[in-house]
C-alpha cells in the first residue's frame, strides 16, 4: 500500500514500514488514517525505516511511537539526529504508575439513597448551625450594638437601598399602571371602575409592592452578597477570617443583614407610593377619574394595618434575601465557576423562599 501526503509517504513492503518526507502536523494526518489499517506483525521481523525522514515535530514523533506500538514494539531505524532527539523527548516512560482512577461503577439503590440521605442531613445540620449563628448574631447586636461593623453596614445600606431605589420605583410604578389598566378595562364594562383605586391600592400595598421589591432586591443584592462572599472564599479571605478567630457571621453576614433590614421598609414604602401613582395615572387618564377622587378612594380603603402587613413582609423578605445570599456565598466551591453557581443559586433559592414566606404570611394575616 502507498499513501501520499502533501510531503510525506508511508509504504509497507516485506514487513518494513518505510516513511519518507518531513513528519509534521501538516503532513501526518493522512498517515494516521492509513495507520489504522495496520495490524501486529505476528512474530515477523518487522521494522520501521525512517531514513527518508529529514525532520519531525511532536506530531511526527507521536505517529512514529504509535506505529511502533501498533506493530508490537518493533525497532525504528535510520533516524536522523533530530528525529532521534524528538523520539527521546516524546517517548518517556511514566515516572511512577499513576493512581488508578476510581472504578466507574454504578452505585446500588441502597447506596444512592444512603448517600442522598447523608447529604441531606449534612446540609440540614449546616443550615441549622448557620441559623443558630444568625440568631446568636442578632442577640449579640441587640446586647452590644457597637459590636456591629457599622462602617460596612452603612456601605451596604447605600448599595442595597439607595442604589436600588430607582429600579424599585420604576418597576412598581409600572406594575401599578399595568394593574390599573387591566382591571380598568374589565371593570368598566360592569360600571365598577370606581373600585379600581381600591383594588390597585390593596394589591400593591399588601402584596405586589413588597413582593416585587423583594424579587428585585434578591436579584441585585442577594446575588451580590453571594458573589462577594464567594470571591472572598476563593481568595482565602474567609479562611483568613477563620484563622484570625473572627466569626464569619458577625463579620460577613450581620452587616449585610442589618443593612437590608433597615433599607427594606423604606424601599417598600417607595414601592407602594410608586405603585399607587402608576394606578392613579391610568385612573385619571384612561378611566377619567379626578385625582382627588382616585386618591380619596385609595386612602379610604387602605388602613394602617394593610401598610403594616406589607412592611412586615418586607422585613421577612429582607431576612430571607440576606441569609440565603450569604449562605450561598459561604458554600461557594472552587474557582470562578463556583462563584457563578453561588450567585445563581442565591437568586433562585431566594426567590423561591420569598414566595414560600409570602404564602405563609398571607395566610397568617388573613387569619388574624
Amino acid at each position, binding site marked *: 500500500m502507498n499513501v501520499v501526503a502533501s510531503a510525506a509517504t508511508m509504504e509497507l513492503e516485506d514487513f518494513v514500514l518505510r516513511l519518507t518526507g518531513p513528519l509534521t502536523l501538516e503532513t501526518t494526518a493522512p498517515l494516521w488514517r492509513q495507520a489504522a489499517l495496520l495490524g501486529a506483525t505476528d512474530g515477523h521481523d518487522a521494522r520501521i525505516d525512517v531514513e527518508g525522514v529529514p525532520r519531525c515535530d511532536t506530531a511526527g514523533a507521536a505517529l512514529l511511537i504509535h506505529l511502533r506500538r501498533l506493530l508490537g514494539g518493533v525497532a525504528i531505524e535510520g533516524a536522523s539526529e533530530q528525529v532521534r532527539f524528538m523520539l527521546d523527548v516524546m517517548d*518517556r516512560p511514566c515516572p511512577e504508575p499513576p493512581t488508578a482512577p476510581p472504578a466507574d461503577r454504578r452505585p446500588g439503590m441502597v447506596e444512592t439513597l444512603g448517600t442522598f440521605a447523608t447529604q441531606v442531613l449534612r446540609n440540614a445540620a449546616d443550615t441549622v448551625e448557620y441559623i443558630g449563628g444568625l440568631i446568636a448574631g442578632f442577640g449579640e447586636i441587640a446586647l452590644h450594638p457597637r459590636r456591629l461593623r457599622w462602617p460596612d453596614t452603612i456601605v451596604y445600606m447605600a448599595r442595597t437601598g439607595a442604589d436600588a431605589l430607582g429600579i424599585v420605583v420604576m418597576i412598581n410604578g409600572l406594575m401599578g399602571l399595568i394593574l390599573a389598566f387591566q382591571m380598568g378595562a374589565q371593570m368598566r364594562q360592569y360600571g365598577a371602575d370606581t373600585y379600581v383605586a381600591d383594588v390597585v391600592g390593596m394589591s400593591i400595598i399588601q402584596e405586589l409592592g413588597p413582593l416585587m421589591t423583594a424579587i428585585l432586591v434578591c436579584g441585585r443584592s442577594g446575588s451580590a452578597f453571594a458573589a462577594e462572599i464567594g470571591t*472572598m472564599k476563593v481568595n482565602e*479571605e474567609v479562611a*483568613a477570617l*477563620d*484563622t*484570625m*478567630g473572627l466569626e464569619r457571621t458577625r463579620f460577613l453576614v450581620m452587616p449585610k443583614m442589618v443593612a437590608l433590614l433597615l433599607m427594606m421598609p423604606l424601599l417598600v414604602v417607595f414601592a407602594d407610593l410608586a405603585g399607587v401613582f402608576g394606578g392613579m395615572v391610568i385612573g385619571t387618564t384612561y378611566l377619567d377619574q379626578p385625582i382627588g377622587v382616585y386618591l380619596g378612594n385609595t386612602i379610604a380603603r387602605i388602613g394602617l394595618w394593610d401598610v403594616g402587613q406589607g412592611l412586615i413582609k418586607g422585613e421577612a423578605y429582607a431576612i430571607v434575601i440576606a441569609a440565603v445570599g450569604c449562605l450561598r456565598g459561604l458554600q461557594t466551591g472552587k474557582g470562578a465557576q463556583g462563584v457563578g453557581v453561588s450567585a445563581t443559586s442565591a437568586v433562585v433559592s431566594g426567590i423561591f423562599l420569598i414566595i414560600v414566606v409570602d404564602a405563609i404570611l398571607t395566610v397568617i394575616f388573613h387569619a388574624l
Partner: protein
Amino acid sequence: MPSETPPPPEAPAPPATVDAIVRVRGLRAAYGDVTILEDVSFDVKRGEVFVILGGSGCGKSTLLKHLIGLIEPAAGTIELDGTDLTASTPAERRELLRRFGVLFQSGALFSGMTLEQNVALPLQEFTPLPREAISRLAQLKLSLVDLDGYEAYRPDEISGGMQKRAGVARALALDPPIVFFDEPSAGLDPISAAELDQLILDLRDSLGTTMVIVTHELASIYAVADRCIVLDKARQTIVAEGHPATLRDESDDPYVRSFFNREPALAGRGGR
C-alpha cells in the same frame, strides 16, 4: 577545708519535645475516602524556622490547613503551644487560633480594606487599645515590612510581593508566638522572594517568632530553614527530617536526593 557537698541529684532529663510549640502525632489527613497523608508525626521547636517540603500534590498545604485548624484530621492529634487543637470546642479553637498568625499563598488581604485597616483588624477585634494606638501600631507593623507610606492603599493597588509583605504585617499584628506561611515565595520574582526570606529571618531573630513554612522553593529553603520535613506523595508520609543541606548531602532516600538536587525522577529516558 570545706566540706564536700554531695552533688545535687541529677534532674530527670526533659522529654525531647519539651520546647515544642507545635506537636503533631499520628496525623492522618483525608478528603472523604481518599487518604492524603498517613501517620505524620513531628515537632516544631520554639523559635525555629521549620519548613514543610515536598513535591506538588504531596499534601503540604493540606498539612498546613490541619495545623491552622481549617481542616480536622481523620486521626491523630495536633498540639499548639500545649493545647490540643483536635480536642477543643469551636470556641476554644477560635480562641487558640487567634494567637497564631497565618500568611496565605495569595496574601488573603481583605480587598475592601486599606492595608492599614487590614493590619488593624485583629487589633480592633482582640485588644482594648484606643483607635489612635491601633492606627499607630498598624503603621509600625507595615513599616516593619517596608511598606511605609502604603497605609491607605488597597490590596489591588499594590504588587504581589507587597501584598505578601502586608499579609506578614497582618499576621504579626498580635505579636503571635508562631506564624504559618503557605508558599510565601510563590509568584514572586527572585529579588522579592529573597527579600521575603530575609524578612522572615529578621522577624525570627528580632521577635523570636517561630515560623512554619510550606514551600518547595529550594532557594528559600536553604536560605531560611533551621529544620525541615520532606513529604512524599507516593508514600503519603514524612520521608526525611533534618537540616536541608544535611539531607541533600547525606540522605539515603532516592526521592529526597532527587528533590534537593533538582534531578528528574527518571534516571534516563528511552526504552528504544
